[in-house]
């Protein structure tokens, strides 16, 4: 209960968690796909963080906060958008299979030029990212939107760095293909 917490905990919370509120909100928004839901998730996550502030090891506050936000977002997704999480395990299996067969890279149906990629606007990018399966999406967002390094992403998403690398590569490849198949600027 909040009232039993000491002022030390409050001060610690203010210095550890609050500076990363923008990052927390951004991750929650990308995972839930909705601003109001994201606020709900961040609020829940912050209460968890406050209760668990004593367990913070003091190394990387942002990664610690994002780990809790991600957990809260997954709980929320499980309750409200369970379909989006069902595929996580299957996805890993497919990924393994594709990876061992080398199939993913060989097919390469679309290879848009860098100039075409550079013309993508915010709406198309957001839509393409939103379509990514959650494990790919969170990896890409943490790296390319939020600027975490691989080690931090590995810590937040609880997978080895090699998996971070392959998920990131696949997420980017899907985005590049998607942007390449979309018609820029709403042209027919």
């Amino acid at each position, binding site marked *: 209960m909040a009232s039993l917490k000491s002022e030390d905990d409050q001060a610690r919370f203010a210095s550890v968690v609050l500076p990363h509120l923008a990052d927390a909100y951004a991750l929650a928004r990308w995972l839930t796909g909705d601003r109001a839901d994201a606020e709900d998730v*961040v609020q829940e996550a912050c209460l968890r963080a406050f209760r668990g502030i004593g367990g913070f090891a003091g190394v990387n506050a942002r990664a610690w906060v994002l780990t809790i936000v991600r957990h809260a977002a997954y709980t929320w997704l499980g*309750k409200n958008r369970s379909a989006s999480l069902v595929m996580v395990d299957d996805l890993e299996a497919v990924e393994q299979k594709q990876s061992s067969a080398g199939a993913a890279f060989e097919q390469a149906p679309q290879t848009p030029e860098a100039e075409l990629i550079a013309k993508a606007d915010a709406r198309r990018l957001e839509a393409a990212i939103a379509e990514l399966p959650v494990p790919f999406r969170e990896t890409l967002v943490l790296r390319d939107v939020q600027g975490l390094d691989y080690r931090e992403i590995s810590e937040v998403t609880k997978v080895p760095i*090699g998996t971070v690398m392959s998920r990131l590569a696949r997420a*980017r490849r899907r985005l590049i293909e998607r942007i390449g198949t979309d018609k820029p600027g709403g042209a027919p």
Partner: protein
Amino acid sequence: MTPTDPRLLVHAYVDGELDPAHALEVERQLADDPALAVERERVEALRRVIAEQLPREGAPPGLARRIEAAVGLRPAPAPARASSRPSWRALAASVAVAAFLGSGATWLALSPGPPDADMVVANHVRALMATHPVDVGSSDRHTVKPWFNGRIPEAPRVVDLASEGFPLVGGRIDVIGRTPVATLVYRVRQHLISLSEVPAGRTIATSHGQIGGYNIVSWTDNGVAYWAVSDVAAADLDTFAKAFRAAEPER
């Protein structure tokens, strides 16, 4: 463990994640393999366009305020509306008093916010008259709580009290003054309890009252005034209020 596929490594190269030996190796491959060089251009173009088009945005200002209040870093959000009550509201309140005034007049005089008390009773009575006392009917707080998103600015506190004998029935939006507020509905035996959550500019002490035969318990936690209204016995309503306040917000 380290992937050796050059098309994976080129991502790590672009991200500056490779040690110097591996970076040199990728640079050599980039020079030898035009397809790989094109892949690198695409990845860099994607990274650039994401950085340009999807700038990092800050958290909504209200969010920080709510969180600070929730952990006790800030006494309570102080909405400007607290001091400017429209006159029609006093009129509405007096109508409510005329309609429901019972033996609770002494309490009314002591109460810190009589209009709110009248309004929550009026809302409760109106809800009982309606076909459904709730707009969202569910015993699952994870269904009820998200329903309020986008309807009211503050996320209400919703707790599961089924094991205490107060199963959740659902929630609705009530209006107190001109402010839409979250109202949760719990059931105890055959009675309904309406619990309105009003972001308060002031802290009010726990108080008990009765208007028109309806018992009322109100209290303030973390800057939110809670108003519980029901026709159950005062002792039952008090038990409910204590259970609600003692419950963990989420698990």
